[in-house]
């Protein structure tokens, strides 16, 4: 593969191959010398138009573990604030020698614009665009689920519940596409005002009760982060109301099966969408997700830059 801007670009086989590679590459984490020479001499630019320390650091570590050179370009401190277009920014970075551009952008579709328009020949990896997609997040979630259930192939039959602000969530969209590709069953739950139109056509059942969904014994519960600026007004009346219906609190935690897992893309708002008790429960795989993030991003960078496997 040359680019990764959407899960739609992956087949089931190529997604599984990526997860297999990530699984192998994750072992580098456990070594004394955490480095492979695979991308020596390659330059990876983290082009971030939106703040995201965690995702940027994860991509940075992934590139460095593969011996690539890494440049971090943040829009706030650059010519972008002077009105430079996306095209000019990308072409400038390529002229400086970028082989891959990892892009985070507040506007849906910006990575696709970079990849599709012949503006540049570098690989483009989507690190989150608007409310469109965050494909490496979905891949790291899938890798975590595979590890927890002991699968080395797909996720067929796995029941996954995604809870929260689906409307604005690129994590939910990428997960929905990838989980369907891998054979999992997805249910989404959240306030009606945050369930987007037509989402069932993308392969999800919709629930308007967290309790009802938990009663169906999901194998994984993915809690989405609630952005505080959306806690009041248009979508629901208060964060108390939100938490009362949609937080993974201790009561709901007790409904969860013993071998279920709790996932969260981070950063968590403890006390809002997830209680500390749930966040620190042994079933919570949040830190495993973070580690897998590095492995998945290594696999994606390698896949895009080695020019080999599809």
């Amino acid at each position: 593969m040359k680019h990764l801007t959407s899960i739609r670009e992956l087949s089931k086989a190529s997604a599984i191959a990526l997860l297999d590679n990530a699984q192998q590459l994750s072992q580098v984490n456990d070594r004394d010398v955490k480095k492979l020479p695979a991308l020596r001499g390659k330059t990876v630019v983290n082009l971030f138009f939106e703040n995201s320390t965690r995702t940027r650091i994860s991509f940075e570590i992934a590139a460095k573990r593969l011996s690539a050179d890494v440049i971090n370009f943040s829009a706030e401190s650059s010519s972008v604030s002077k009105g430079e277009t996306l095209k000019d920014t990308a072409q400038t970075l390529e002229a400086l020698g970028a082989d891959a551009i990892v892009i985070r952008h507040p506007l849906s579709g910006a990575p696709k614009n970079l990849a599709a328009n012949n503006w540049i020949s570098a690989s483009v990896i989507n690190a989150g665009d608007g409310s469109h997609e965050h494909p490496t997040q979905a891949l790291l979630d899938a890798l975590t689920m595979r590890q927890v259930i002991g699968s080395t192939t797909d996720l067929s039959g796995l029941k996954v519940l995604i809870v929260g602000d689906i409307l604005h969530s690129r994590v939910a969209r990428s997960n929905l596409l990838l989980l369907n590709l891998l054979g999992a069953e997805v249910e989404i739950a959240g306030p009606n005002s945050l369930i987007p139109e037509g989402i069932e056509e993308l392969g999800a059942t919709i629930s308007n009760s967290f309790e009802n969904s938990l009663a169906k014994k999901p194998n994984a519960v993915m809690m989405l982060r609630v952005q505080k600026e959306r806690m009041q007004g248009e979508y629901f009346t208060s964060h108390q109301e939100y938490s009362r219906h949609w937080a993974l609190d201790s009561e709901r935690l007790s409904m969860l099966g013993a071998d279920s897992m709790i996932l969260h893309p981070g950063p968590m708002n403890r006390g809002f969408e997830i209680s500390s008790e749930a966040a620190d429960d042994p079933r919570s795989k949040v830190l495993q997700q973070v580690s897998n993030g590095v492995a998945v991003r290594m696999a994606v960078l390698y896949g895009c830059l080695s020019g080999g496997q599809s």
Partner: protein
Amino acid sequence: MSQVVLRNVLLANGTGADIEIENGIVSAIGSSSAQGIDCSGLIALPGFVDVHTHLREPGFEASETVLSGTKSAAAGGYTAVLAMANTYPVADTSDVVEQIFDLGHDSGFSQVQPIGSVTKGLAGSELSDIFGMNQSRAKVTMFSDDGVCVSDADLMRDALLEVKKFGGVIAQHAQDPNLTNGSQMNSGALSTELGLKGWPAIAEESIIERDALLAEETGSRLHICHLTTAGAVEVVRWAKKRGINITAEATPHHLMLTEEEVRSYDPVYKVNPPLRTKEDSLALRAAVLDGTIDVIGTDHAPHSKEKKECEWQNAAFGMVGLEHAASVLQEVLIEEGGQSWERFSQLMSSTPARIAGLENQGVLAVGQPANIALVDPNSKREISSETHSKSTNNPFSGLVLPGSIVHTLYRGVFTLKDGQLQVLK
């Protein structure tokens, strides 16, 4: 005295004829013994009339000028275009519409009839000098805030009453702004997947329904620009059945393309109103065939490269269409719909001329100005992005479409000859 003879043309009704033109006027249609241009295999139609063109001048000359826009029109078989009012300054006074009228006169490639804005500065709060523009040299009869909707019902009612005085028409861009704040594409599963704000069909349909009732109550005349949804077709059908004086338009792009194009995030497909679903496009086609849609309007909306070479959300709305509208309609109406060239001619020429009140357009008859498009119906071509417009935001690039315009005559003068744009004195 100048004479042009078009030999061996096919008329819209299928009969063969020679057309003699003297001093810009059709002097005979029948059998001619004079020397002339052999037009075997070509269909002679009244020159096309576009009720919905954005010529961008004055104000946005980087995207289009009256000259470049009318060249593009001539290349597409048009002999008259109605120039939308969203220029800068807005065409909301006699001065501006007369300026556009004169620029059109100077271009010579087609008639340019200015459309006046309904509200001052398109701001939607106060009526423009509608009567003044009608009384000006430009003799404006069609008024539109196209680009934005006249959303205030009271103002819309006043506008309908104002144009009724002189038999004018309001062309409404039906889009409830409260339902489309920040909207980027048709709303549905695809807008959800792509993370782009949806543009619900009801935003269009509710305004058409309201305005149809206002037209009924005022007894005035209403034209609906660019219908896009199956529901909008239903509303217009209902209004016509009720006897309301309403006409409706569809664009080539809404007949041909669907929201699936947006998957590419290529802003060339960003347009207002947005591309809709396959079902909507099929409903529009059916409405063209059954006459619910009265005219094809191109909504030719040129934009310079920098307004399209960017992220979807930052790009301008609009696409060009003058040079390919006839091919799209041939595909929809004739190849697929099995209807006649006479019907084609109604949709492209005579009905738009009637709606816009252009007396010397839309008719091919002895004694009338020779405004003629000659179509080769048997050619097939892959649409290229080459154009006579100043802008290249062409969504049809790469499609293979039937038909081509071989000659266009405006007032008896070739503006396009053998597919080549002519140099005019």
